[in-house]
Every structure is written in C-alpha cells, then in structure tokens.
C-alpha cells in the first residue's frame, strides 16, 4: 500500500478529536480502583476496632498521609510518562520526601523509646501480613491504573509500570491504614514501605508486558 493511500484513509472523516486533560482518565480509573480497595478493607478486614477514637491519633494520620503523598506524586509521574516525549518530571522527589519524613519520625521514636519497647514498635502484632495485605488491597488500583495507561502512549514501559505500581501501593497502604491497628512509626517505616515496594516491583515487571503498543 502506498503511504499516500494510508494518509488518505487516516484523514478521511477523521473528525474532531477530544483531547482530555492530562491525567483525567487516570484519575477516573484510580477512583474506580479505590472503590475496590475500600471494599476489600471494609468487607475483608473491617475498620480499626478503635474507630473513631483513632481519628484523634497523629499516628493514624501519618499512616494515611505518607502513602497518600506517595500515591499522589506517583500519579503525577505516571500521567506524565503516559505522554510520548514528556519527562518523568520532579514529582518523584515527593515520594523521596515522604520516605525521608517517615524514616525520620521512626528513627526519632526508636531512639527515644526505652530499649525493651523497641521490638513492639518495629514488629507490632501484624508484621507478617502487613506488606502482603497492602499489596492485595493495591491490586484493584494497579489494574485500573495500567488499564488507563494502555489507552495513552507510554514509551518507557518499565518506568511507567513502576509509577503505576507506586500509585497503587500508596493508595493501597492509605486504605489499609483504615484497618491497621499498629501505632509504631518504625512499623510504618518498614512494613508499609515494603508493602508499597511490592506493587512497584509488580508494576515494573508488568509494564513491558501489558503496556506495549
């Protein structure tokens, strides 16, 4: 086929093309995925048994806020990587900031705690399941985010997949915080971070496989 024939085919009645705002489709998809994550936590895990007193605890807000910041920054990065020729940008530094803050708070709590109490701060009661629970809760968001990226045109597939994973991991961890009974900052600094890292690795592995176009 001649290239001019292809051009004629593509141009004929091409019509006006809707140009949605950057990230709009991703935001919509993530909202749907979040409903799935919320359903898993509310039905499968249940709200924290100290609700609503827990709303008054700073630790609750750190468990919610740190992953939410990670998700927000990763979402910005993912929506940029979804467009050809656009760099990842600086939002990735926000993820680093979130990690530095939580590790700083954790180190402070660890160092000021009497040594016999340190183990409880780090391991809590739920360290075995925490990271896997977060990964499970992140899955609906990961599927939704990858689906939205497929409709766009990412050219750095592994990085875009990892960004979708960080978005999902952050969202999953924030939703898990509604259930999580732990109150030690060192616990969050290790197990929440691990729980977010697993979806990142999963996303980086899936990226080249499912985002290819």
């Amino acid at each position: 086929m001649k290239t001019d024939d292809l051009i004629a085919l593509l141009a004929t009645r091409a019509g006006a093309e809707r140009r949605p705002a950057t990230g709009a489709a991703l935001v919509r998809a993530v909202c749907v995925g979040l409903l799935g994550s919320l359903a898993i936590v509310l039905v499968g895990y249940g709200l924290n048994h100290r609700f609503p007193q827990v709303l008054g605890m700073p630790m609750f807000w750190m468990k919610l806020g740190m992953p939410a910041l990670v998700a927000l920054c990763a979402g910005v990065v993912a929506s940029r990587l979804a467009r050809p020729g656009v760099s990842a940008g600086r939002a990735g530094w926000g993820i680093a900031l979130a990690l530095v803050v939580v590790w700083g708070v954790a180190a402070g709590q660890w160092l000021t705690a009497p040594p016999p109490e340190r183990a409880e701060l780090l391991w809590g009661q739920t360290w075995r399941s925490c990271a896997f629970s977060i990964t499970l809760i992140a899955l609906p968001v990961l599927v939704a985010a990858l689906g939205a990226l497929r409709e766009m045109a990412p050219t750095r597939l592994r990085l875009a997949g990892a960004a979708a994973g960080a978005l999902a991991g952050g969202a999953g961890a924030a939703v898990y915080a509604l259930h999580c009974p732990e109150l030690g900052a060192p616990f969050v600094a290790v197990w929440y971070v691990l729980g977010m890292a697993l979806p990142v690795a999963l996303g980086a592995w899936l990226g080249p496989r499912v985002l290819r176009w």
Partner: protein
Amino acid sequence: MSTPDAETELRRLLLAGLDGDEAAYRRFLQQLAGHLRAYLGRRLFGWPDDVEDLVQECLLVMHNKRHTYQPDQPLTAWVHAIARYKLIDLLRARGARDALHDPLDDDSPLAAASQQDAHDAQRDLMGLLQSLPDKQRRPIECVKIEGLSVVETARLTGLSESAVKVGIHRGLKALAARFGAARRLESHA
C-alpha cells in the same frame, strides 16, 4: 524549509486537524510522513526496505494516539518519542542492538523532509485490513475508504452509529497491533 518553521507549521496543522479540519489534518500527515522518512531513513540505513513500513506504522499509531498530544508540548518531542519507540521495537526484533548506539535520542528539531520519494511499503496494509472482523472492516471501508458518512454507513451495514464509530476506532487499533505482530513474525522467520 528551516526547522523551527517546520515545527510551527506542523503543529498548526495538527491542532487544526484535531479541531476537525480534515484538509489540515491530511496536510499534517503528508508533511509528517516526509519528516519520518528522513528521521527513520538516517537511522535505518542498513535496512532501507524497512523505512517505508516503519513510516506507515508510525503514521498509524500517531493517528491512533493523537489524543495524547497536548498543545503545551513541542510537537517534535512527541513525534520523535513515538518514532524512537517504534524504531527500538524494530531493532530489538532484528536483534540489532548495535544500531541502538546510534544517536537515537538527539532532540534536534524536525528535520527537513527526505529528498527521496516514498517507496511502496512492503507490507500489504489492505491485506491486513481484510483480516479484521466484519464489524471493524466494514465501517473502515465505508467511512475511511469510500468516504461515506457515519449515518450512511450505519444504514448500509445495519450497525448502529456508535457501533460504526467504535468499529473504526477498534479496527485502526487492531491494524496497528497487527502491523507490529507481522513485523515481529517476519524478523523471526
């Protein structure tokens, strides 16, 4: 044609095309094809026969992904990112990793169009079109080749108007996917 003008002119034509100006969009694709031929020709000098196939594949995917272009972005960056993505895909399939050391990521402005004429592509796009399911192939034939309106096509095929639009959209996406699949198959043969 001096290069900053090429960017300005191409961008103007694309934006007019995205707003529904079919003639502008056709001119955009024609000029884009010239730039792609030059850009890919410089990087595929070992495989001149592949250039026109890849030009066509790039045109097809750029059409399918045109909603990802935002006016705040240099068009050159968008075009080169997609061309490079498809080029690396091809070179990988050929196992020609050496060629990846070539300066693939120079972000020079859109170069002047290649002097060489468009060769016919080797791949038979019409053949690929025939392999699409009827509910995608018929809308493409009626609207995109014969130039019928969506309403006329709907009456002719018995499909609903939205089914006609969806059929065209999905059909062109499927065509792009088959393009890539055919290429990978050839290079493994």
